[in-house]
């Protein structure tokens, strides 16, 4: 329900931005102005949205100060960091080293450049939905980051950290998700969840199908995953297994701001809460780490989780010196 409002809001803001652009066009007609007045008069929402875009547009006039004197207009004036041109390499090792560092700089500039790729990130405890130009959708969980790059006929999305759910929109260009050492090519309208672990990635296919091949050229690891399959790629190799719909929904409870536990250990549950909160839960006593838990908790409510644990198990909670919640065995 609420999720629909984002696109309605964006539609209003786009319409407002178009009016700002039109009204500032010297060839704007009286009829256009009248149409604008009518549109603005429709609601306070339109009125406020117009003011917002108009103020931003006016603020951008300051960009005129960036204009160098007496030159023909340069459309690429504000292009991101110019790429150093690599000329013929000199023979001396010193010059070669210099050229190598120039090449390094080129690579670094490329990965930081926003000209062709865009990064989206969330802070701890935050979630975010991103709709891409092709209508593909990315839902980012807490403390996560993706870099989106549409180039040479490929829609490439790289998961840099955390966890995300990807909805690939049907399109002639392949939709490729990269995460750790996995490269996943999703079919149009496939839905997949990817989570980065300490040394690899876990991929769960919820709808449609994907082709996976690890970056390492072990072509025999190529495989096709269909809905209801989860696979893990890490230093120990690749393994996949079937997962039930209920299990998938539980693993995606974060979309509702929740953690769904179904027999996980206290250690796993605490690690899960720690992803969403600055206030950490620490298990001070290994003898309670393997207690098994079930339940449905708010990600942002570690204290209600802790009080559920302390009332159900012989566990005591205390305040650690660093503000963390310390769990130990109640004697």
């Amino acid at each position: 329900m609420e999720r629909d409002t984002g696109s309605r809001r964006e539609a209003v803001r786009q319409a407002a931005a178009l009016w700002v652009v039109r009204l500032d066009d010297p060839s704007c007609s009286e009829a256009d102005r009248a149409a604008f007045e009518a549109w603005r008069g429709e609601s306070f929402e339109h009125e406020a949205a117009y003011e917002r875009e108009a103020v931003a547009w006016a603020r951008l006039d300051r960009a005129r100060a960036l204009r160098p004197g007496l030159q023909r207009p340069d459309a690429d004036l504000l292009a991101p960091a110019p790429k150093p041109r690599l000329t013929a390499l000199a023979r001396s090792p010193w010059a070669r080293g210099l050229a190598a560092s120039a090449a390094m700089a080129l690579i670094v500039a490329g990965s930081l450049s926003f000209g062709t790729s865009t990064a989206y990130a969330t802070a701890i405890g935050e979630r975010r939905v991103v709709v891409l130009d092709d209508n593909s959708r990315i839902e980012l969980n807490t403390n996560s980051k993706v870099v989106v790059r549409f180039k040479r006929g490929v829609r490439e999305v790289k998961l840099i950290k955390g966890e995300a759910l990807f909805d690939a929109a049907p399109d002639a260009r392949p939709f490729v998700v990269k995460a750790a050492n996995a490269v996943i090519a999703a079919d149009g309208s496939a839905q997949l969840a990817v989570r980065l672990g300490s040394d690899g990635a876990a991929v769960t296919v919820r709808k449609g199908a994907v082709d996976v091949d690890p970056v390492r050229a072990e072509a025999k690891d190529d495989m096709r995953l269909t809905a209801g399959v989860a696979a893990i790629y890490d230093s120990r190799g690749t393994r996949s297994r079937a997962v039930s719909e209920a299990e998938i929904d539980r693993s995606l409870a974060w979309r509702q701001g929740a953690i769904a536990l179904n027999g996980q250990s206290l250690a796993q549950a605490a690690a899960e809460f720690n992803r969403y909160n600055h206030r950490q839960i620490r298990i001070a006593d290994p003898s309670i780490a393997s207690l098994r838990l079930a339940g449905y908790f708010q990600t942002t409510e570690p204290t209600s989780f802790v009080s559920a644990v302390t009332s159900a198990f012989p566990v005591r909670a205390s305040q650690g010196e660093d503000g963390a919640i310390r769990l130990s065995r109640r004697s």
Partner: protein
Amino acid sequence: MAQDDEDRRAWFRREILPLEPELLAYARRFCRDGQTDPEDLVHDAFARAIACKTWREIGNPAAFATRVLRNCALDALRRRKVLTITAVADFDRIEPIDEAPGAQAIMESREALQALADAIAELPTQCRRVFTLRKVYNLSPDEIAGRMGLSVSTVEKHLVKGLRYCSDKLGRRSERKSKVDERRSWSGTRDQDAKR
């Protein structure tokens, strides 16, 4: 009447719009369960604030905007089918934004200019070119269309895209001097209020 409307809009531009980064940060505190989009709350709050006919009587615009946003958040909560107890409890713990007036130290203009240049530099290539010709060189959409071999409507599309990107980006960036620690300043205000 028309003048009255223009005055009301000018008030909104002058007093309410610059609060956007603070309001967005404040809105996030109501959205921690992920059911509501903070951008929606800010958008709704702006629409309600600009509708205020009695704006002349508002002495503290930041306090007013905070209250409006809080009401928007409460309404969004009421529209929800399932109300969790924790969501309601959370609401009571959210303190208003720092309402101290006169905190508007405009940041150094060179820094502001750099922020604009950075925002434009982040646009996709073609969009950035169109935007640069319009905003830096002040060419009209017709001239840009002729020069780049595009239709005027394509030029408009690029300009809308560029403007939307920059207005979001600049809206998140405070023009005021940023607080050392937002959370601390919020709870600090709260403590003082409680003592009064």
